[in-house]
């Protein structure tokens, strides 16, 4: 760049050279201290990231190393047993699947319904709609064990009085993950451009017809992703189930949501992890591997779904 400018006079040449050297000095001769500090800082934040990544890797490797000895298909096909050699997770896995099935049945209509209401119908100027929104955001942060207390006081006993049954667990877990589903479904619905709605309304469709035939089909992938994420949270949640009578030693497969004596995978793992006795510990680690494998499968499916059906408007 500097080549293009030819100073006419000696005086101008001197002035340009002076200005250039001053600028260059200011740009390049930064105090060396700052350069060093900047490098140290970069090293520190990369160290922070690696600590978190190493923690995750250590967790996975640890579960694998501890549980490797017990990994076999028996884990999936055998029921719980006092004899650690023959014990498996069949009853617990089936219990978890039943629980999750109930959660899906409840959470999909309720969560999507609430999201449609908030995005398509609610007037944000009204205080009650703002209250509902704030409420959902807060519910997303209520500790899971408090939902356990709610389930114990309202569903197991109290008004619903179902007793310690699988359905009570499903309902409590559904309430626990409902805010997650609502928030995800709202984002998916919001991502559908207004022009789609306007086009539908202009053709004479009612508001519900517009929602039902235009907005919802376009939002399905986003909603499904949110539902799967919510399910994976419910799948790994043990704390509320402790309060709802998820037993630890159940050898019979669940057969009916309103019968007692159910268990779930994370609850059984918790029970085994509590025992220092090494064979049960190994079994707990193997259970964790099974649980993480199921979660990995669910999350991969969610990611695949998002990539497959993601729409750009």
């Amino acid at each position: 760049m500097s080549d293009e400018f030819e100073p006419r006079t000696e005086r101008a040449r001197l002035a340009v050279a002076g200005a250039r050297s001053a600028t260059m000095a200011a740009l390049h001769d930064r105090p060396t201290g700052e350069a060093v500090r900047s490098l140290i800082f970069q090293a520190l934040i990369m160290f922070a990231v690696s600590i978190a990544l190493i923690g995750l890797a250590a967790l996975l490797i640890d579960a694998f190393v501890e549980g490797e000895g017990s990994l076999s298909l028996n884990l999936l096909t055998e029921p719980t047993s006092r004899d650690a050699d023959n014990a498996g997770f069949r009853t617990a896995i089936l219990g978890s699947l039943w629980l999750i099935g109930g959660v899906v049945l409840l959470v999909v209509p309720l969560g999507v319904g609430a999201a449609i209401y908030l995005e398509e119908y609610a007037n944000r100027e009204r205080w009650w709609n703002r209250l509902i929104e704030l409420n959902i955001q807060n519910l997303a942060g209520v500790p899971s064990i408090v939902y356990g207390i709610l389930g114990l006081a309202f569903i197991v006993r109290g008004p619903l009085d179902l007793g310690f049954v699988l359905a009570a667990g499903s309902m409590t877990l559904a309430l626990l993950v409902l805010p997650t589903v609502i928030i995800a479904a709202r984002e998916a619905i919001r991502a559908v451009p207004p022009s789609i709605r306007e086009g539908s309304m202009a053709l004479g469709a009612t508001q519900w017809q517009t929602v039902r035939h235009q907005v919802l089909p376009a939002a399905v992938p986003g909603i499904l992703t949110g539902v799967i994420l919510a399910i994976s949270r419910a799948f790994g949640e043990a704390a509320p189930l402790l309060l709802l009578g998820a037993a630890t030693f159940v050898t019979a497969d669940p057969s009916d949501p309103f019968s007692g004596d159910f268990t779930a995978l994370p609850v059984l793992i918790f029970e085994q992890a509590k025992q220092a006795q090494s064979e049960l510990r190994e079994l707990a680690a193997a259970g964790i591997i099974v649980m993480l494998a199921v979660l990995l499968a669910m999350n991969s499916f969610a990611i695949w779904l998002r990539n497959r059906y993601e729409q750009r408007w």
Partner: protein
Amino acid sequence: MEARDIGVSSPVGLSSRLEAPSRRWGEKAIFAALAVCAALSVITTTAIVISLLGPAFGFFQEVSPGDFFLKSEWAPAQELFGVLPLVLGTLSVVLWGLLFAIPIGLGAAIYLSEYAGPRVRKIVKPVLEVLAGIPTVAIGFFGVSLVTPLLQDIWPGEFLGGPPGFFNAGAAALCVGLMIVPIISSISDDAMRSVPAGLREGAYALGAGKMRVALRVVFPAALSGTVASIVLAFSRAVGETMIVILVAGNTPNLTLNPVEPIQAMTAYIGVTATGDIATGTIEYDTVFAVGALLFVITLVANLISIRLVRRYREAYE
């Protein structure tokens, strides 16, 4: 006014023909059903409050609130109802956990938003978020089987009164810290990325280096989002149950020392309110009193973080 006179058909007639031929009760019923779905969240909160307050009220008729909040011994079997050891147990895990998670989470956030290229970011951020999705039972098992033994091995002699025992708050804090790192890093990263590029470019134009821009421009500009992420992480850590039961033990203990075993509020609820507890006993009511305290603490934290997140959204979006 004049338009009405020159109109081909009267506007009154037009609007009456545009009106729906029926009253559309179906639409109204659907609206009502959807509103009920949304109202369910309010019902849930109300139910939580009622289910906590009822028994907690009964509890405070038996035990004076002064004893509950100020006495320093918790042993319901011996009728000692000072909740401080449980609160301090929770605080011990949460504070040590935050001490671990805040530098790591913020470092990761600055790295992701200011240093990492788009390709690295696209891999590292979801991988970090995997940590948030791992069931806490698994993290608790990790604590018992690896973190505690590791701490015992590397503990420097008699520091803080000797190496931690099998149950200790320190290992639980590290595990809880690991769990909340992605909350801090993800939300802070979002907040930092929503700082307008113009602010950064202005600083670069004045000759600032990358570190200076990150620490003096982006970090302060994203402060409310960052604080919100930390408050949210605090709320999560306070409510965490499985890790503290498995790793920190179940001994009420009035201490912040990380080598000591403690009992957190959530752990007390988790081990006491299992299926066979009898209704109507004072022990049953303690669960609700402790639960109500837990709910209030997390409620305050959640409201603060919601408010702060809203502020950074309003400022830059």
